[in-house]
Structure formats: structure tokens, C-alpha cells
């Protein structure tokens, strides 16, 4: 852990966009961020998990939007003019993440990432790939790919399949 920072690791330092959620600060890999936009109403989708607010029209693409607070099991906040929707693209899929505010861009060297201690409570560590310190601040690094995770989709598909099988039987 305490290796001296080599030139290589400095070069590999990644940039993270930090966003605020209550009193916490989360980092999103900046390479995944497509754009940051204000909150606009979305179209609700039937049978979606509660944290999926709906879909919006992003220049012709239908993009789902999820609320990070709800995703982490926090209370829903009123959306205001300052509410921000961060559009990210992961593995060819785009989706929006609603957060309270966008705050900063920080640089994080690979060896500056610590594992997340089991916090037991609100935030599921499954969606975090680590935490890092920026000065006095603690930034939780999001594992963006897992937010609109395939597990749910697979579970849904499996449920549908079994239902269909039942219907056939």
C-alpha cells in the first residue's frame, strides 16, 4: 500500500466527477460521463424498480434515469432547479443519475483508492469500488456499471421465462 508514487501510477491517475448526495460525496469516473443536465420530467415506465424514475429523450435516444438516493435506499428529496442529472455511458448503454448537485473534478491515483469498510447501514457497498480522500474530504467512488445492473434484468428475464413456462404448461 505504501509504495512511493511512481511516475507510471501518476500517469494512470483517473479523474472523477464528484457529486453530492446529502452530506456525502461520490465520485463518478469522468470517462463515463457524457453530459450534465438539469432535471426535466421523465416518462414513467411500468414494472420498473422504484429507483428507476423513467425515461427521457436525449436527442432521439430513449435514456432511463435513476435516482441515486433511492438506489441507495435513502429518502427521496424534492427535485428543484438545482437538481442535476448526470448522463453516463457504460458498456454502450446510456443512463442518467439524479443527484443533489455536482461539485468538483478530482484526480485519484490508483494507489489512492482504499477498500470500502463495511458501513453496515445505508449505502450498499456493492455499488462502490472504493473510497479516497481529497484533502479533508472523503469521496466514495461509484461502480457505475452496477447501478443499472444486469442482475435485476436477469432476474426479471428469469421470472418472465418461468411465468411463460407456467403459462405453456
Amino acid at each position, binding site marked *: 500500500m505504501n509504495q512511493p508514487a511512481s511516475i507510471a501510477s501518476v500517469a494512470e491517475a483517473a479523474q472523477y466527477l464528484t457529486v453530492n448526495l446529502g452530506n456525502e460525496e461520490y465520485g463518478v469516473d469522468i470517462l463515463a460521463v457524457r453530459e450534465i443536465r438539469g432535471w426535466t*420530467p*421523465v*416518462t*414513467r*415506465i*411500468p*414494472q*420498473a424498480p422504484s429507483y*428507476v424514475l*423513467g*425515461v*427521457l*429523450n436525449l*436527442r*432521439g*435516444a*430513449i*435514456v*432511463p434515469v435513476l435516482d441515486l438516493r433511492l438506489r441507495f435506499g435513502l429518502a427521496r428529496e424534492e427535485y428543484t432547479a438545482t437538481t442535476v442529472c448526470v448522463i453516463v455511458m457504460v458498456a454502450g*448503454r*446510456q*443512463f442518467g443519475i439524479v443527484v443533489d448537485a455536482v461539485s468538483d473534478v478530482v484526480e485519484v491515483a490508483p494507489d489512492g483508492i482504499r477498500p470500502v469498510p463495511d458501513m453496515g447501514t445505508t449505502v450498499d457497498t456493492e455499488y462502490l469500488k472504493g473510497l479516497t480522500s481529497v484533502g479533508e474530504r472523503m469521496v466514495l467512488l461509484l461502480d457505475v456499471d452496477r447501478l*443499472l445492473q444486469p442482475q435485476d*434484468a436477469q432476474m*426479471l*428475464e428469469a421470472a*418472465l421465462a418461468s*411465468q*411463460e413456462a407456467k*403459462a405453456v404448461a
Partner: protein
Amino acid sequence: MSKVDLAQFHKAFHEESLDGLDAMEQALLALDEGADDPELINVVFRAAHSIKGGAATFGFADVAAFTHVAENLMDEVRSGRRPMEKAVVELLLRSGDVIRDMLSLQMAGQPGATAESQSLLAELSAMVGGAAAPVATKAAAPAEAIEGWDIAFRPFDYLLKTGNDPARMFRELEALGPLATTVDASKLPSLADMDPTASYLAYTLRLDAGAKRAAVEGVFDWVDGDCELTVTPRVAAPAPVAAPAAPVAPRAVREVAANSEASSVRVGIEKIDMLINLVGELVITQAMLSQFNEGVGEARLEMFRHGLAQLARHTRELQESVMSIRMLPISTVFNRFPRLVRDLAQKLDKKVVLDLRGETTELDKTVLEKIGDPLVHLVRNAIDHGLEVPAKRTAAGKSDTGTLRMEAFHRGGSIVVEVADDGAGLNRDAIVAKAVQRGIIASGEGMSDDAVAELIFEAGFSTAATTTDLSGRGVGMDVVRRNVMDLGGTVNIRSVHGKGTTFTITLPLTLAIIDGLTAAVGSETYIVPLVSIVESVQVKADLVRSVVGGGELFRFRDEWLPIVRLFDVFGCDGERLSVDQGIVIVVEAEGTRIGLFVDELIGQQQAVVKSLEANYRRVVGISGATILPDGAVALITDVTGLVRMQARRKAA
């Protein structure tokens, strides 16, 4: 060899080879029917030759070796040393199939040789030159005492641009025997004047092998007419030095397009999708603008209207022209049928003439890709079950050769594809008996012939007493119907006993844009595709019956249809209306009708269909999304899904 990554060209090679194989198959089938056109033989030869060349270039040695032998066989036919017999056609047709398989394997990164290819290769080799070894190895001592060949080769300056590479041709020559190359660079201009894509060099080649003339000339087949070429044999010592032979008689300049296909452009589908997306946006903008069409100053308004009319026209034209990029003639699908019909007829000892019509009718690429399988199924069915064996046909007073007609044409805003045979027609009694046995109907009494015919679309329905390896593999007409339905189309059947059966498939021109009714449900908006709508009705409360378990039925003419409340199915927000406050849209899918209950109909509009799965996932009851004139997203209902959902609920 340079280190250029050839993998990027593999896909293009694969596609071109498949096209070549298709052309080869068509030519072979024409030859099989007795067409006597040397050009057809050339088409086959060239297809094999270019696949061999490509395969060798890309290091697909198995394919190259196999194709080489097939090409040699073809060469014997071309040079008149072997008649184009049935056996040859048969063997070459099978070779085409094997090459197709080998190519697919190679593209998947597996070695291309299979047990089948090995055994066929042996058959081919045995036929070529009466068991002569493939020419690729050193040829046996030739009858004429030829020691070698002197070749003067001067490519015209554009040769490289035609995709030919002298170096590759020389490698091919080298495979025949030791090769000495002298380069004449006298025409090479100064570096400043040089066009790197032009060829300036001339070559004198000395091949020290007694290869056959055809083998040597074959190497230069592709550059025929694009170069000066002299091939002179060097005869054994006693003979005086041969006078330079006359240059190879230039073969008649062949038409570039060997088959009549219109020249086409390969465009990446993602680029087209992008264009369609943009045009979709334009359509939406136009719709948005048209809403300002009220309440502005009179003169301005006139101008505004004029501009709008223009925008509307341009948008429509642009849309049509862009959509047309995706449109391909149905011949790309039809072309596979001559072979299928020939093989099936042979296997079943039936005589069948395939009558293809309307092959230039254009269809959306996505529709084309999906319509192939249902058509194959219908054709198999027609030949296996529909058409009778010759003896039976003559007994019935018909010609012993059955006719299978496949026809595509436009009707209204749709494309119709018909598959018709003049066989025995459907056996009404057998279908009724089977349907009664399966509990689908109680009895066939009072059912019209058409209604009986419709029964064969029921799941798991097959009238074939025994399943053959041609049909009855558990997939039936229900699958055909489902596939067509998934494309937003319908299948109809018309059958006359003793006269034949006609299947009519009606398909939308494109899947990218649909006509739909916009409906309000609670505080939300949904779009119901117009093609599935039978009628919209206001239902009086006294025509509604609730049934045990919470379902509701309403009376629609003579039927009682289940009501599906979209409000509940989709879990909408807003106020829940009672039945007589809203509208019931009667929709039909898979032969079943249900009533979709919505609050209000807003209007009819064209919807540009967007995928929900691209960024999200499949949602039950929703087939996609579209963008409303105000920029908001509206979801498109999946009527088939809703009907199935209702059926499932009933079953539960």
C-alpha cells in the same frame, strides 16, 4: 508479409464470398436446368477463383485448398474437357455448401476443414482429371515436353486499383514451380511525379515447371484486359527456340456485372440508423412547429404556414429517401429458394417448377432478415404436404409437375408476399379431426373452410401423420404466424380442395415508423399501434359483466371480450375512471381480441419507433417508445404482449 492487420478485411471478404457463392449457386441451378451459356460457367469459375484468392490472401488455407480443387473441376468444364453433367453440377452445388460452412467456421476462428469437407474434397479430387493430384503440388510430367514458361507481364497503370496484386499472383505461380522474376523499372517516374497507387513496373517471369498452360494462364485470369500478357512455353532442348507464341487471345471482354443484380452499396447499418434517427428528430421538430400554427399576426401567419408546408414536404421527402437506403429487393431472400425447391423436390420425388415473381419489390432490411425463415417454412410445407407426387397428380387430371408460385407486390401501404401451390389443398376433415382431438374446437360443424384453415396456425398443430426430416420438427405454422406478427404483419390462408393452397403474408413497409392512436391513461400517454386496432367504442356500464376473480367482460357485437385496463396493467398515476367514462379500444393479436380500456383518445399520429432496450430493457406490454411533439417520451403498447398477458391471467 507486412504486418498489416488483415482481420479488418475478413468481414468484407466473408460477405463478398457469400455473395459469390450465391451467384455460383444461381448459375449452377440454371446450368442444371439445361441452360447452355458459357457465361454461366464463367460465373461459377470466377466465384470459386476469387474465393480461393481471397482465402489464400487471408491465410484461410483450408478454404483455399478446397476451393482450388473445385476451381480445377470448373476449369475442365470451362476449357471444354468435360461436359457440364448433372453429376458435376451436383458436386459443385455441394461444394458451395461446404465452402459456405468452412467460411463460417473460419470467421468464428475455427479451422475450416470438417469431415464433410474432407470427404467431398476426396470426391472432387477423384473427379478432377481422373484422379490426378491437385495442381497445387508439382504437376506430373506433361505429355508435351514443356520445360517451363516465359511470361512477359506488363500491368496497365491502374491495375492495383482494381484490387489485384502482382505479388500475390507471383506467389500463386511459385506454387507451380521455381520462379525467377526480373523487374523492368524503366517506366518508374521520379519520386515527385509518382502516384503510389499506380503500377509502373513490368515483369519478366521464368517458370521452371512443366505446368499446364491453363494453370499458368489461370493465375492471370483476373487481370485479363488490364495488362499486356505473353505466355510462351519453353520446349525441351532439341526443339528450336520457339517463336514467341501469339499473345494469349484476349477473351471477350466480359460484362462486369455477371449477374443482373443492380449495383449496390454496402453501408454500415449503424450509419443508416443514425440517419434515420436524425430524420426522426426532424419529423418531431416539424410536428412541434406545426403547433404554433395558431394565434399570430395575419401576414406573418401566412408566411409561417407556407414555411411549414415546405418543411413538411421536405421532411417527408428526406424521410422517404433515407428510408429507401434500408430497402432491399426481396430477391435477396427469394434467391435461396430455387436451390431449396430443387433439393426438396429431388428428395421427395416430386416435380416442382418454382415461379418467382415481383423479385424487385423492396422491403426494409430488418423485415427481410426476419421473413426468410417463415417463407422457408411455408415452401417446405407446400412441397412436402401441399404438392402431390406425379402419379397422384396425373390421376387427378393435373400436369405431373407442380407449380409453386412466390410473389411479392405492393398493396396499399404494405407489402404482400404470397406462397401458392397448385397441390391438393388442405384436408378439411383431417384438420377438424385433429382440432377436435386437441380440444381446440368442439366440432367442425358450421365452420367455414377459411375458419378451418385458420386452425393450422394453432400451436403444436400438424396434420402430417408422420414427421419427416423436412417438416414437423415441432415448429409449426404457429411459429410462422408469430414471426410474421412480430414484424407487425399478418398471415392469411386460402385453400381450395384439389386446387391448391395460398398463403398471403402482409407486411408493413418498415418497422421504423408506425401509425398509432395516442391515448391518455391517468396522467400518462400511451400509443396503440393502428394495425392492431379493430375499433374504438364507448361502453355502457350495463354491457359490462364482472367475472369471478376480478376480470371484466364487455359485449362487443356478438362476442364477450375481456377488458384490460391499462391503468392497472401499467400501474399509472392519476384518477381511476369507471368503464363508462372512458374508451375501450378493441385490439386483435394472434387471432384473439381484447378491449384496452383507456381514459381518452387524444389523436392519431405517426410515431418514430425507438428502442427501449438499447439503454434499458424489455418491458412487458411495451414494445418501444416514441417522442411526442412536445419532446416528451411516450411508450408504445405491445398489443401481442397484452393479449398473451390476458390469456395467461385467464389460465391462472
